[in-house]
């Protein structure tokens, strides 16, 4: 039974009195979660059924929507994806903003957003950026809904940020899906937004356009931000275009690692770890001597990487935690990451693209 308006406002008053000021150095930029709970939204009555938007009250259980309820029908039409079978499996769902121009579809996606997400979208002055914000939040919410058996309304997901600002799902206390925690990460370029999902393993993903040009010279960028061994491997490439592409590959891999670690750019500066692409054991990461300074003990090497070319237009790097590696010695080859990729237009069409020409594994 959905809670009544009275129960909602009582819960809100109780929650408000429990709210404490949080000291969080990134809180100003934490747009997904308001500090104070919002007042209850007005109830709409439609066709005899009372719809209520889920209230962002801490401690209040989120009621499940049952499929078949008007409005619930839409997300129940999301097809169930194949399950994530192991912590080494990563599923990536991506969409192309340039191809999504149907205004009624975009309005539908916007309906999925929470008020603070909508506020953030509205703060974007450029229309393209606003559309990207709407699409990336809609992609995340619909993907999470898929991996929770399509039983949870995409609108009902709540998010929190860890102390470094990495977004995570805030699972309701009574939810059984919290036993198998889903981890996600999002990356966007102007032409592609990707959402990676893993189970029981922290994940980081980064996409970049292959044709992207830097304004600064590649080697000077590398000397400033990368490690000496990476600079050397880039300097060996004589063709400037090939060098630029290699730089982008390294960039996406390093970015994916930092995002997977979840400690921000300063938690793992690029100069503290090296990525090696061409080893016999696939992509390897190693800490540099820089990292032996105090403060970088959290940099770990038990991470699995995969690098792929999407649609011949983008590089995509995925990095997930490898908990089994602590038992294996460093000489053992890590098992490859099981990668599945879908191109999606949420509620309209999903296409499995991994295993086709659209996804070419590089390493």
């Amino acid at each position, binding site marked *: 039974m959905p809670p009544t308006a009275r129960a909602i406002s009582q819960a809100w008053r109780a929650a408000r009195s429990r709210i404490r000021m949080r000291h969080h150095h990134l809180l100003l930029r934490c747009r997904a979660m308001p500090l104070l709970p919002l007042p209850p939204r007005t109830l709409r009555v439609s066709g005899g059924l009372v719809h209520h938007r889920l209230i962002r009250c801490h401690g209040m259980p989120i009621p499940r929507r049952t499929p078949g309820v008007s409005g619930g029908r839409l997300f129940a039409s999301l097809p169930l994806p194949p399950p994530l079978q192991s912590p080494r499996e990563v599923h990536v769902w991506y969409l192309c903003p340039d191809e999504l121009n149907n205004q009624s579809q975009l309005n539908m996606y916007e309906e999925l957003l929470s008020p603070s997400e909508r506020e953030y979208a509205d703060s974007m002055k*450029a229309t393209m950026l606003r559309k990207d914000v709407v699409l990336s939040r809609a992609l995340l919410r619909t993907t999470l809904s898929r991996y929770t058996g399509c039983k949870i309304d995409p609108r009902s997901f709540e998010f929190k940020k860890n102390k470094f600002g990495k977004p995570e799902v805030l699972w309701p206390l009574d939810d059984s899906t919290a036993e198998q925690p889903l981890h996600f990460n999002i990356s966007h370029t102007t032409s592609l937004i990707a959402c990676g999902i893993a189970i029981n393993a922290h994940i980081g993903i980064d996409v970049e356009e292959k044709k992207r040009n830097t304004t600064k010279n590649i080697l000077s960028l590398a000397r400033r931000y990368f490690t000496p061994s990476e600079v050397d491997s880039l300097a060996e490439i004589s063709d400037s275009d090939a060098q630029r592409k290699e730089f982008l590959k390294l960039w996406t891999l390093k970015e994916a690692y930092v995002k997977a670690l979840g400690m921000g750019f300063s938690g793992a500066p690029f100069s503290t770890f090296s990525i090696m692409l061409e080893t016999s054991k696939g992509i390897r990461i190693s800490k540099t001597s820089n990292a032996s300074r105090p403060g970088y003990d959290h940099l770990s090497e038990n991470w699995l990487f995969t690098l792929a070319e999407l649609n011949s237009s983008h590089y995509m790097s995925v990095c997930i935690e490898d908990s089994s590696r602590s038992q294996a010695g460093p000489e053992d080859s890590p098992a490859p990451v099981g990668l599945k990729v879908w191109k999606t237009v949420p509620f309209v069409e999903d296409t499995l693209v991994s295993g086709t020409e659209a996804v070419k594994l590089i390493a």
Partner: protein
Amino acid sequence: MPAFVLQLYIAMCLQSDPECPALLDSRIHLEVANVISSRSSVSFRSQKMSFVSIRSRPSSLRFKICCSATGEAQAKKETVDKVCMIVKKQLAVPDGTPVTAESKFSELGADSLDTVEIVMGLEEEFNITVDETSAQDIATVQDAADLIEKLVTEKTA
């Protein structure tokens, strides 16, 4: 939380007289950032406390606090202008879109690679070195300009 109350009091004093010089004890180093009325969030940073952020309900007040603890004015306009120019060039901002001190990098469409290129451009222009921790806190053009001024001052000191 007496320190918190002190900060709020200072903010209120400054609100009534935005042009006043710094009235802060030199032991407490406070920087107060611009406040945008639609978001009504005020941020304080203090050596004694970790970063505190307060959000109130949106009000029609719009006030600018222009002092820093050292008593100098906010980053000079020419610094801000130079930063705007570097940002515009890096992000290829179309002529119609204004880039001002309050512009947020995220709202201009900067991704992580753009941000490091901007930081590198600023390092070259002002002959400074920005470490990753400081770079991570830059959200607006004003933040970048303030950081530059601070690093330049520290360098010449």
